[in-house]
């Protein structure tokens, strides 16, 4: 149940932006075109900062979109197409940083921080309450009762 919720959350967050792909670039085969879009959305446009090649109007983005579609038509699978691009441009071109030792800190820190914070909150909640005061003597107890009765 939790896992399904998390999966839901992940995919909910994938926000489909509008695309810069030109009609002339699009493949006639809708399944291939969909794959091309999905791959393109994972690749960074290097001359625009923070856009994927699917969203960017830049020349380089256009060229890469065309190449991706060519390679898909030639029969490459998704991994091979991505490798074609990363071979030439490095892992920087991936919008999703690969999960590798260099990025363990990145990927695990959000939940690590949540857990650390929760632990901290737990210890905070478990603090010993202040020790009880000196017991009241008879006069003070009578006073207390009177006050309580007044309040009601």
């Amino acid at each position: 149940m939790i896992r399904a919720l998390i999966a839901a959350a992940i995919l909910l967050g994938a926000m489909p932006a509008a695309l810069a792909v030109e009609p002339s670039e699009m493949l006639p085969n809708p399944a291939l075109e969909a794959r091309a879009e999905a791959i393109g959305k994972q690749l960074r446009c290097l001359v625009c900062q923070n856009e994927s090649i699917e969203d960017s109007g830049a020349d380089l983005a256009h060229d890469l979109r065309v190449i991706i579609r060519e390679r898909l038509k030639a029969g490459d699978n998704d991994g091979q197409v991505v490798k074609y691009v990363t071979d030439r441009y490095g892992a920087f071109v991936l919008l999703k940083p690969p999960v590798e030792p260099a990025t363990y800190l990145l990927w695990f820190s959000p939940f690590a921080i949540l857990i650390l914070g929760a632990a901290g909150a737990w210890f905070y909640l478990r603090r010993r309450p202040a020790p009880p005061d000196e017991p009241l003597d008879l006069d003070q107890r009578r006073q207390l009762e009177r006050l309580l009765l007044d309040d009601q």
Partner: protein
Amino acid sequence: MSWRRAIYLLPLAAFAALAIYLSHGLAPGYNPELLPSAMIDKPAPAFDLAGLKGEARLTNRAFTDEIVFVNFFASWCVPCRQESPVLMDLSRRNVIVLYGIDYKDKPADAEKFLQQYGDPYRRIGVDDSGRTAINFGVYGVPETYAIDRTGHIRWRHVGPLTDDVVKNEILPLLQRLGAS
């Protein structure tokens, strides 16, 4: 110092670490837009491009047994004009073997550009589609690649070449690769 006190110091310690990283980002050599080439130490991609002004085609088979520099340029590229004098100087003094690849340009415009700023290249190839550039991992012009005798890419510079780059990077590189 008690546990409690130590915890209160954590935010300050974290900020100190952050300040150190941020100052690294301000160091003169740091440029977030500068990418290291993924093609270093890989064989240079094969290409076969038409020549400029009716000359012979340029292919990578021309780079036999010598250290070769390939410079991607274009007539519409402003920084390319800045590096022209440096390239002309290198070519005149025969320091390096320089080939040029004209990226996504009209041949007529490229010829005008070379007339105006000089032609430092031994030969030029015309990369009309930009495909060869992508195979090299080019993401903007100008970019310059060094290919060694075995045909592997050993160095890339993004942006216009300057005298500093020549002195501090190209000359040592030539020594390392064993220029004759």
